[in-house]
């Protein structure tokens, strides 16, 4: 099986104080420029937002990334997407990664759906010819034929999400990251979106879905990862694990012994010791 994404002891810290965080930012930038490694220990006011996350995903996998608000799901997606650098560990990818999030679709409200498709396609790395050839399929899939020349101001949140999702799924990416995108669309479109993801995964695409909707996961996911306060408490088969996890909402990081495939991981503090 072809490996798609490999996370090896990935950690990320965040600072609780804004002003301190800005000073740490300057410190980190200077270190980076001088080629000096950033400190692995926590500085005052910092905490681990993600701690020692390790898992592998293979081509065709669809991972449901589950966790409470603030568990670190979106941060993990941003690390995989290369937007934030990890503080420890390593992320390797074996194909192109594209992401759709609830906020950052890159749309301009004042421009029409047509213009936004071309711009969004370019932002997601699609070639002009690919956008052109996929244009009709995108519009048809998003069910926005009547709105294609209407500015996005007239679109509802769900319609914008449909458009963003449609462009991304037609971009031909090898890894797709979706952050609560299908949470904003109606049930019928959600089912259609899930079916599209399932088919794309069957054809070799890897997907990571973040959300809280169990229906959506049941339709698509074959693997699940559960984050509790920045720690991976479960990684493995979706069907096997997620029933237990979702029926017992976990609020503490103590319940860590889940997961048949989870590796024994050293915490960054242990590493220092």
């Amino acid at each position: 099986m072809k490996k798609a994404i490999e996370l090896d002891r990935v950690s990320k810290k965040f600072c609780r104080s804004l002003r301190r965080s800005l000073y740490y930012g300057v410190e980190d930038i200077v270190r980076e420029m001088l080629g000096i490694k950033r400190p692995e220990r926590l500085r005052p006011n910092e905490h681990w937002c993600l701690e020692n996350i390790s898992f592998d995903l293979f081509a065709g996998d669809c991972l449901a990334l589950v966790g409470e608000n603030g568990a670190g799901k979106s941060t993990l997606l941003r690390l995989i997407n290369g937007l934030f650098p990890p503080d420890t560990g390593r992320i390797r990818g074996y194909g192109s990664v594209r992401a759709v999030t609830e906020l950052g679709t890159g749309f301009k409200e004042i421009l029409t759906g047509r213009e936004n498709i071309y711009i969004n396609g370019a932002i997601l790395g699609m070639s002009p010819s690919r956008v052109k050839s996929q244009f009709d399929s995108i519009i048809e899939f998003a069910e926005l034929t009547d709105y294609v020349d209407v500015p996005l101001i007239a679109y509802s949140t769900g319609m914008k999400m449909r458009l963003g999702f449609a462009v991304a799924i037609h971009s031909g990416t090898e890894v797709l990251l979706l952050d609560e995108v299908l949470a904003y669309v109606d049930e019928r479109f959600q089912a259609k979106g899930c079916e599209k993801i399932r088919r794309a995964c069957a054809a070799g695409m890897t997907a990571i879905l973040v959300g809280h909707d169990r229906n959506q996961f049941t339709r698509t996911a074959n693997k699940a990862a559960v984050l509790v306060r920045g720690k991976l408490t479960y990684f493995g088969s979706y069907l096997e694990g997620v029933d237990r996890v979702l029926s017992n909402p976990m609020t503490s990081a103590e319940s860590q012994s889940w997961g048949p495939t989870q590796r024994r991981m050293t915490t960054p503090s242990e590493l220092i010791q």
Partner: protein
Amino acid sequence: MEGRPFFEYSAEPVLRRPKQFFKLMFRDAKGCGHLVMRLLQRNFASQYRQFALGLLWLVLPGVISAFVLLFSQSGSLVTDRSFAVQTFLGTLTWQTFVEAVYSPFRQIMGATSLLKNVNFPREALLWASFLEVLTTFLIRVGLMVLALVVLGGPITFQSTAGLLSGAVLVLFGLTLGLAIIPIGMLFRDVERGLAIVMTALFFLTPTVYKTQPNATLNSWIQTNPISILYYTLSDSLIFGRATHVSEVLWIGTASLAALMVAWVLCRIALPHCLQRVSV
């Protein structure tokens, strides 16, 4: 089972592998041409669509300047034509410089949400802002040249030095703008401070006033790069003479070198800044 990784992100400083860093940097710069054009189109369209006169605003200031110039010939509005041209060129030079300095910073700050959520060559935003400022400048100066041609002004081959000077001016401003991004994104003091510096610079640049021969700071006023670029621009368009060309080329080369450094700086700093600033 799997080949070489397509990408690898780690905590290791990126400059420890300079070869890979620069390879990726140039790959992104080379591959983002299509995206730059799309962003440029987006910027112009979204900027002017909510105006009743639309893209006309792009040429309107130039058209008005040209009209006033034509008027000045009859002596009814301004008695000294070359003074009028100089004033217009001075205003244009200063305006372009200010736009060039602020443009990359505003582009990045305006796209924070996008940058925090989608991975794409960030250079595209910067090149789009460069082209946007340059296009606006060329349209404005082009209309002015047209008016001068109608007036029978001495537009010669040497006048092309004016265009070179304009491009260097945009490059110079953009480099300064790019250099402030890393710290400017973290601390808003930079943006405030920049406004003060720009005001001070305005008074040290004889774009809209004539200098007194014995003024204090005169040597600085005369050697300040913006003054030199402005002299070339006005000499080439008003008198059809290419002056200070070697200085312009020097400023251009130095700006280009500084731009490369600022670009590396930005590329390293942006991920660190983005995780610490709000959308």
